[in-house]
């Protein structure tokens, strides 16, 4: 193959790729600041530990410490207080907004705690020494609002294995976590909760036998196997909204509403060429928002 042929192949592989709206720079900066803060705290702890080692070492050397008492209680460092940036602070968890009937709110909270613990214990750096991508950085489970808890595989086992959890913290960062036989892990980073008033891009991604993520920067994916499950969610900027409908796959459903968020999930049986259409209404039934009017990218592609 000539160099030009290879270039043609690579360019062709990218053809039709839709870069979407680009990065959410606000979310990136927010996470970056948290990571910097975390690194500073870690460095502070390391420095303190080094000083303690030096002091302890010299004390041991001089025989000044009684080491028979064993280690003292572990100290923890609380994360720096954070402020909500335009997102309603989730109230102390009163149960998921959407809960699969096979499970209880207690199951969901237990899974959330596991997810937080799992990520708190995760190595701060990756195998290559880079900082690990922060997930579930808010350590207090009460600071999260669970938007969804339910199975991500068709027939979850008798325990909560095979379940997925979608939670949003007080800054509007959504984290998605699902379990595996060897422990809890976050399947992907969903970034900030989309604002309903923002122009919505053209479609969402799909996945067979799994939840479909609200990937707002994507056109429909090819040849998914049907049926597949999708989810979409957002926040309600307009407090007057008492009803939100989501139209997708030829069906319109009412979204679940709570604490300033809406959430909807469903199953597609055939390909779609547009994003879910979101509409919100006030108590008198007046249309407050229609995503098809929000911008060209929100309109159906065909």
């Amino acid at each position, binding site marked *: *193959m000539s*160099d030009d*042929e*290879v*270039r*043609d*192949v*690579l*360019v*062709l*592989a*990218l*053809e*039709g*790729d*839709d*870069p979407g709206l*680009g*990065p959410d*720079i606000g979310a*990136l*900066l927010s*996470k*970056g600041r948290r*990571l*910097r803060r975390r*690194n500073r705290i870690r460095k502070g702890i390391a420095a303190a530990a080094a000083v303690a080692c030096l002091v302890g070492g010299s004390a041991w050397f001089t025989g000044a410490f009684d080491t028979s008492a064993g280690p003292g209680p572990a100290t923890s460092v609380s994360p720096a207080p954070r402020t909500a940036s335009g997102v309603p602070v989730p109230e102390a968890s009163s149960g998921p907004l959407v809960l699969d009937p096979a499970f209880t709110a207690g199951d969901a909270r237990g899974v959330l705690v596991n997810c937080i613990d799992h990520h708190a214990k995760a190595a701060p750096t*990756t*195998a*290559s020494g*880079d*900082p690990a*991508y922060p997930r579930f950085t808010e350590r207090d489970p009460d600071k999260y609002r669970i938007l969804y808890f339910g199975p991500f*595989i068709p027939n979850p086992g008798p325990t909560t294995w*095979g379940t997925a959890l979608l939670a949003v913290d007080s800054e509007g960062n959504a984290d998605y976590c*699902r379990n*595996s036989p*060897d422990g809890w*892990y976050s399947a*992907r*980073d969903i*970034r900030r909760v989309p604002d309903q008033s923002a122009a919505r891009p053209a479609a969402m*991604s799909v*996945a*067979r*036998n*799994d939840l479909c*993520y609200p*990937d707002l*920067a994507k*056109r*429909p*994916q*090819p*040849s*998914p*196997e049907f049926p597949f499950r999708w989810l979409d969610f957002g926040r309600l900027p307009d407090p007057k909204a008492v009803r939100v409908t989501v139209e997708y796959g030829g069906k319109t459903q009412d979204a679940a509403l709570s604490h300033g968020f809406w959430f909807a999930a469903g199953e597609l049986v055939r390909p779609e*060429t547009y994003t879910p259409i979101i509409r919100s209404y006030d108590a008198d039934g007046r249309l407050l928002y229609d995503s098809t009017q929000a911008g060209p990218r929100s309109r159906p*592609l*065909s």
Partner: protein
Amino acid sequence: MSEKRAARRSRGGTDDAEFSEFVRIVWPRLRRTALLICGNPQQAEDAVQAGLLKLYVAWPRLKHVEMLEAYAKKAVLNALLDEARRPWRRERSGTDLPDTQVVPYDAPEQVENRIAVTRALAAVPKRQRAVLVLRFYDDLDVAETARLLACSTGTVKSQTARGLGALRAALIAQGWNEERLPSMAAALGGAA
């Protein structure tokens, strides 16, 4: 003390503005490179985000402005190649994510060609694919590619040769033959 804090805050604000502008400029390029290497748009964006996050943390210490994009690319490559080694990335749990995108108004042969090359690329081992993308899509020379992938120039050359062989074999397995590539080029020309 308060002056120092104010200066730091002011510097932080400048940093953020500069970083935001930098992200706006490099995001599309980094995303395309990452997408070619991993084949999955979401994973590509995650890797770019992770790489940029790493860059943001180091931003105040970075002095060589002309090297910023190279730093970013290296961070993204690390994230991509590192992500591939994570156990949960290997796990599927019944999920089979689609590997390419379909634009509804594409002609069927365009879609067919694109799916063929996407699958062929996916069949090339990831490290070799990264070398091919950096060499032939990003137009980097052997030395720059070696620096980004933290390997020797000899490794880059051997990975290039192996990657080209693997890509060719994979294209043939997808039904490609010597006459087909010109039709791809024509399809590209038609699309442009």
